[in-house]
């Protein structure tokens, strides 16, 4: 045993960790602060990025113009309506699937979860094909049934709210599922023992107990709805309905561009989401104090009796509208020559699929997707693991700042982030604009908090004494991390990787201002095909892309399953 000087500064032991911490801090700070600072500066300038100009407050003043205030109102209105609808529908589905004796509950649960992975822009495309003025429903009404007086229009407020709600139901379902399944059975049993009927148990005990989770779900759904870009862009722009996210896009994309106003809009949208997020965190924290005590017992299933068919109809109709119908429609549109609402009269072709294989652009976009999602997600997981370790375990000086930085992009909508990066790399002498690198940067920044949440959630469950036992057994900090902490955290790293991979694959909002012909990924290829009104190619790309991704993820799951043997959760002491 050598006498060594105190290393109470930063790290307790080892310079390697110190260097890692500084590197991690620096990377996160650069990732997050560069686009945000660019936005702040941009909102105070009167010229486009990279051009000489002067300082001004006119952009912020521009927020008070009539058009912008109208956009704010539309954004909040659409956000409220669609989040209420999705929270209601998602909670109802979660309740029916997990607390009643509905048939095929597990299949339904799997299908609802699966629809979570259907990208918003693909869902919007499908519903445009179904419900736009020249779409399927109107075609059927006119050509097949001969009805002229009634038409549906997906390019409307109702259409946008409907598709956003459809898109977010699985999110609300997944949020509510945990609290509904994990509720302490003794709360309900106590109510029943006190003489309450099934219905009053539900009304006076179960729902009030879930109210925190429900509020929290509602707020998060609202955030997702107001920062939703793809659906209001595809469905709102043709019908002249603008929300904040699409207005920003229009201001930047179409001449004459007004970058300053776009930046001011983006920042105010970020402030709105950040406020809602702060509210949600507060609610969630109170919730933890309120009901997460006690063991999860066996909850009694509510017998549906003669209402069962209605509950089944309720759940299956969601799966049909959000998953089956869109996929079938995309499949149909991808194999017809010209758009025709009547499948009996349509001319069929495989040319879209042939084109996919022939076109070097689409092949490149597949390759780019693999790089961006596959490799980018890996980088994201490495970064998120380091952040979680430093903020939750080692807690060196400044770790709260690191935590705050990593969570900051959570409140920044995708298009806003895209604009910030666009602006920043127009100034900075780093030639990454128009490359896949900037997409990787954008995606990691945007979804970093998802990964740290997943990994951190696991790390806090791993009892501190497991690591301490390694140190007392003679392991250095690094050995403790490698031999004890990481092996125990592996499932969460895999989970985070899957999450990031899917998020990167389906992301369009932050990519839409950053992609170019050479850095096209699948989502942007589909997007631009659809923008060029090439519905068939967009549909074919969507289907092939989704199938490829599911095969890739499945293969990955099979590969990693072997490594999970011997791992038994619930075996961690201190829980």
């Amino acid at each position: 045993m050598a006498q060594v000087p105190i290393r109470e500064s930063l790290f307790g032991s080892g310079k390697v960790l110190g260097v890692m911490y500084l590197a991690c801090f620096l990377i996160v700070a650069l990732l997050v602060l560069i686009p945000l600072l660019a936005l702040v500066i941009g909102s105070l300038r009167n010229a486009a990025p990279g051009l000489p100009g002067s300082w001004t407050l006119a952009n912020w003043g521009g927020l008070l113009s009539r058009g912008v205030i109208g956009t704010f109102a539309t954004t909040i209105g659409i956000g409220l309506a669609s989040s209420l609808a999705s929270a209601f529908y998602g909670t109802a589905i979660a309740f029916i699937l997990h607390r009643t004796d509905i048939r095929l509950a597990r299949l339904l649960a799997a299908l609802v979860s699966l629809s979570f992975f259907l990208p918003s822009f693909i869902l919007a495309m499908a519903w445009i094909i179904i419900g736009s003025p020249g779409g399927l429903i109107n075609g059927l009404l006119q050509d097949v049934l001969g009805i002229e007086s009634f038409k549906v229009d997906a390019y409307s407020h109702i259409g946008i709210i409907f598709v956003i709600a459809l898109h977010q139901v699985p999110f609300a379902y997944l949020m509510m599922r945990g609290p509904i399944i994990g509720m302490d059975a003794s709360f309900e049993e106590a109510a029943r023992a006190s003489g309450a009927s099934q219905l009053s148990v539900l009304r006076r005990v179960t729902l009030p107990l879930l109210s925190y989770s429900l509020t929290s779900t509602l707020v998060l759904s609202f955030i997702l709805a107001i920062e939703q870009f793809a659906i209001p862009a595809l469905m709102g722009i043709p019908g002249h309905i603008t929300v904040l996210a699409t207005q920003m896009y229009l201001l930047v994309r179409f001449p004459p561009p007004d970058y300053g106003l776009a930046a001011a809009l983006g920042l105010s949208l970020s402030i709105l989401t950040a406020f809602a997020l702060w509210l949600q965190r507060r609610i969630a924290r109170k919730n933890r104090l309120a009901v997460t005590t006690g063991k999860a017992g066996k909850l009694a299933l509510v017998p549906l009796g003669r209402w069962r068919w209605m509950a089944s109809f309720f759940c299956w109709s969601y799966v049909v509208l959000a998953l089956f119908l869109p996929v079938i429609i995309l499949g149909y549109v991808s194999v017809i020559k010209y758009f025709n609402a009547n499948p009996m009269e349509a001319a069929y072709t495989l040319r879209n699929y042939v084109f996919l294989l022939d076109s070097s652009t689409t092949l490149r976009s597949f390759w780019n997707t693999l790089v961006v999602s596959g490799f980018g997600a890996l980088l994201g997981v490495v970064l998120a693991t380091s952040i979680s370790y430093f903020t939750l375990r080692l807690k060196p000086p400044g770790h709260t700042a690191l935590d705050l930085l990593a969570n900051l992009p959570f409140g920044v909508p995708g298009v806003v982030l895209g604009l910030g990066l666009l602006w920043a790399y127009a100034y900075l002498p780093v030639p990454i604009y128009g490359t896949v690198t900037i997409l990787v940067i954008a995606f990691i920044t945007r979804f970093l908090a998802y990964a740290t949440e997943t990994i951190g959630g696991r790390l806090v469950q791993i009892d501190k004494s497991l690591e301490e036992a390694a140190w007392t057994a003679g392991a250095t900090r690094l050995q403790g991390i490698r031999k004890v902490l990481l092996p125990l955290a592996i499932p969460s790293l895999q989970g985070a990787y899957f999450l990031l991979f899917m998020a990167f694959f389906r992301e369009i909002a932050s990519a839409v201002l950053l992609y170019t012909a050479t850095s096209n990924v699948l989502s942007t290829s589909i997007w631009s095909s659809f923008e060029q009104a090439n519905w068939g190619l967009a549909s074919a790309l969507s289907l092939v892309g989704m199938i490829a991704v599911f095969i890739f993820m499945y293969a990955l799951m099979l590969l990693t399953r072997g490594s999970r043997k011997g791992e038994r959760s619930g075996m961690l002491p201190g829980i």
Partner: protein
Amino acid sequence: MGIHISNLVKIYGSSTVVNQISFDVADGEFVTLLGPSGCGKTTTLRCIAGLELADGGTIEIDGVAVSDRSLGIHVGTHERNLGMVFQSYAIWPHMTVASNVAFPLQVRGATPKAAIDEAVRWALNIVGLDALAHRHPSELSGGQQQRVALARAIVGKPKVLLFDEPLSNLDARLRDRTRAEISRIQKELAIPAVYVTHDQAEALSMSDRVIVMSAGVTVEEGAPRDLYRRPSKRFTAEFIGAANFLAMTWDGLVWRTADGSAVDIPAEQQAVAGEKREAVLRCEVLRVEPADVVLDRMHIALRGTVRGLQYMGPHTEYAIEVAGATIVAHSQAEFTVGNLVNVTFRPQDVHLLPANA
């Protein structure tokens, strides 16, 4: 050479959790830190392990300073050559029993594979788990996990064994068995041990010496028998075992209780007339007899009234009003509330606390 700790200080924010603690542990000695939760005993142990950075004082293990603030010395936990058993066992769930036990040798890297296997077998044999070497921790009971933790702590023949309330998660019967086993193994290996607990039974039955702690300072230390029978502090008498306290006054000839009853005990020391002291009476030395029974001259008797009772099985616990105080006595005899009784005890079973207790 053991462990030598002097003036250890640990401060969290504005509260001094460990305040100038000093003690030694001789080679092969088993020393227990005993105290209520929050008394600083676990923090002291964690400072010895190097899991906490001491704010003052020195810690020496086997003659080497591992912590000395004034000299700027803080040897990392992994370099202190310890064996530690945690309250939560801290058995790594992703490793088998054998790899858990092999870890301390593998991670230090100096031992060849065959010797590691041999050492693991030896350690598992000592704790009686030879047959379970290839199981996963999830397949073990709490008691078995505890023994894996013990095997892991001893496998590297450490300079010191540290125990952080290792039995508190076990059920009562298993606790008794494991207690005996830890004692036996520690004696066999003759490794100095520091054991932290709030359980007096563990402290009394296992230790060569007990250090009673409260609010970050040492209250008293001594061999288990001395601490129990002749505590020099009221806190010790209260914390270890069930004790009754009677206020007594020396009238120049004999000690008298508050109501004037004489308690004729051998004078240990010269007392000044009018001096007040407290007498400690353990519940189990008291006998409760009907008031009309003829008194035995070998015993001191105090007249009292039964105020409450709880039937406990082996005995009944009586709360009896005696000499202006309520004392608790255990008896197999049957009385009811309101009965007049004599509480009797032998003179040598009375312990007078020192004046400054």
